[in-house]
């Protein structure tokens, strides 16, 4: 582990090789919003709310702080007009699915997002993938997964695995930033015959 230093929002920040920008910033008490990030999980880079500006070799690029490696001498800005515009729009898009989510409402306040900007589609799931990845990476059960792609993407429990594994676990429930996960689970349960589910 080599130590390195970089500049975030005008402050010198110490980091170690292999850290992401997000880890380096949070280590120094600088907050960057995230929805899909979790310390126990591999960085995903899905919600893109953690976009920051990195200046290197005279060029400014937008990168996701959760996946971008902290490098020596990088100059990072965590707020700017463009970053705020991106975060506002991303929040507005997610609010269409889960307008009551506290996580999203907090973001909406910070970035002045209008929760009614896009037509509502209350599926409640914002596809952050925390449940899917927690189940795969930490629990190694794969009881919940993504199905389909693009605008048709959904999360879905695998009934056979869920019936056997989920009753005793449910560790993913508190990770969910909306109420989608519980709903999906209840749905799966109602689809599975009561004999299989009850113990």
């Amino acid at each position, binding site marked *: 582990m080599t130590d390195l230093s970089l500049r975030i929002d005008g402050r010198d920040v110490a980091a170690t090789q292999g850290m992401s920008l997000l880890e380096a910033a949070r280590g120094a008490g600088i907050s960057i919003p995230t929805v899909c990030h979790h310390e126990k999980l591999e960085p995903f880079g899905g*919600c*893109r709310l953690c*976009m920051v500006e990195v200046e290197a070799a005279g060029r400014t690029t*937008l990168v996701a702080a959760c996946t971008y490696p902290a490098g020596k001498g990088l100059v990072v800005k965590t707020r700017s007009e*463009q970053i705020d515009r991106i975060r506002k729009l991303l929040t507005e898009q997610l609010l269409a699915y889960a307008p009551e989510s506290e996580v999203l409402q907090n973001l909406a306040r910070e970035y002045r997002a209008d929760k009614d900007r896009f037509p509502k589609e209350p599926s409640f799931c914002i596809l952050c993938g925390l449940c899917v990845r927690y189940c795969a990476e930490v629990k190694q059960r794969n009881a919940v997964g993504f199905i389909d792609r*693009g605008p048709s*993407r959904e999360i879905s429990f695998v009934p056979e695995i869920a019936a056997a594994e989920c009753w005793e676990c449910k560790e993913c429930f508190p990770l969910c930033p909306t109420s989608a996960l519980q709903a999906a689970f209840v749905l799966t349960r109602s689809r599975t015959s009561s004999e299989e589910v009850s113990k």
Partner: protein
Amino acid sequence: MPALTSAAELERLRQEIVSRNHPDRPRVSVCAGAGCLATGAARVIAAFDTEIETQGLKGEVQVKATGCPGFCERGPIVVIDPGQTCYLQVAPKDVPTIVSKTLKEKTVIDRLLYADATTKERAVRESDIPFYKNQERNIIGNNIKIDPQCIDDYLALGGYSALAKVLSRMTAEQVVEEIGKSGLRGRGGGGFPTGVKWDAARNAPGETKYVIVNADEGDPGAFMDRAVLEGNPHSILEGLLIGAYAIGAREGYVYVRQEYPLALKNVGIAIRQAEEYGFLGSNILGSGFDFRVQVHRGAGAFVCGEETALILSLEGRPGEPRSRPPYPATRGLWGKPTNINNVETWANVPLIINRGADWFAQFGTAGSKGTKIFSLVGKIRNTGLVEVPMGVTLRDIVYKIGDGIPGGKKFKAVQTGGPAGGCIPEEHLDIAVDFDALTKAGAMMGSGGMIVLDEDTCMVDVARYFVNFLAQESCGKCSPCREGIKQMHRILTNITEGRGKEGDIELLEELAMTTGSASLCALGRSAPNPVLSTIRHFRAEYEAHIREKRCLSYSCKDLVSYYIDPQACAACLLCMKRCTSEAISGARDRIHVIDQQKCNKCGTCFDVCPSKFDAVVRLTGERVPEPVPDALRVVVRKKAAAHAGQKETG
């Protein structure tokens, strides 16, 4: 056949193959690429086989099913050597005449030759046809000379000599340097310098490394890679072998989409033949270099053309891109240094090694060297594959090679760069086509799709079409791509269906900014191009749709109405009979009226109304006049009535 063990043995074999195929021996080459097969090339080949036997030429004439030379518009294509006589749109019924006249009597059949649409001048030789004459066919030029399932054909043209040269006389560093010096840039769309990419993979620490052919061509209307894979698979394998040697890989993969069955078949055959000849396997050509290749069939997700998604898909995981860095050059397949190049990039490699970086760099512009294959499709006379030096103008491609727009229509734009490319209007037709100039014009090179659009195409609808494609093909992992493209599609659909409102253009631009700058991979980052380039060059069309509910190209059905002008209608029954939704009422001598509720806007009435009447009119952005009252629907015939009367009495 025993495996070759040295460069000298390869050269001896090549000479033997060449001496077996005497240049004066008559040869019939029939394109067996996907396009010509679709128009009946297999039956033409079968007809040649039987006819040659019937007319007693068996053993004297060789019939070859070859790769695609590019002129798909006029397939099936037949080239007869010696003499390079090129016959177009050949049907099985033409074959007996070709055998008797051309092969036996050595005369040319005029009606099967290319004839210029205006001058009527005919071209006998393939190379005299304007479509080909204005190209520089370094890569696809050999396709018509090669049976892709026969390695000897490739060897006869000097195949695998670049590999032999590399293995016997060049160090890995020298190979990377030569490719770097040539200025070759990735042909899959990124345009990244190939030499730099190779160098990174070569210098990456690690014993095990991989090379991959990205043959996941998925752009609508693009078939460049398909033609090279199907038509000259050994050229790709040879390039891959050279790349593997240069970066130090001993295993490689060809990632081909499952929807290309012929490409899969031909690549599979090529690999088996290369193994048999000793170009793949252990101790290749006695050099101590080992290399093996496997084919992986892609399941057809567009996003798997993105290199990190392709790698995950190869590993058996969902094909979703991951963030870079780390780049595949340091952490690729199974976490090992990996070099991925596109089909066309690999196919250029043997040419550069054989003829030198300077030869390659003589083609092209300052920043983009060599040639590029484009698939020229859409509203263009000569549909097909076009290989030109970088730097030719779009105008030359569209007019000199493509022969312009058919049906007397006006050119409107050319869409380049695949679904996430952009539309370039008339006033930019003189830009020199290369990586940088296309990007500057708001489009991109992409992998080489070129779709020509004419005046009947609505540019808002074009944007909607491509954005819809991208929405379906987004993997959905990151929210700016998944949600941004979806919202852009919703707004574009509203605009084309007459529900556009003030502020929509600005909202599209805002969504485009976020999707373009915050998405995880190149699919999302380039997805706004179709929207932004059409707003930039065709803003008036957007405004007409939104403000006046007008579609200037009469293409958006919800904004177009068809109406029969009662003054002009001659009650000829034609439109009534042809109406596809039984929406037209009328009778002989009764003015025809379209029921707007029933009309499905197919436009058939407009097309069939005789030009001497021109009674059917298209309306957009205006109210359809009330139909004539029933009492006034009688047609007053003048001359026609008199004429009809005469006929009846006579």
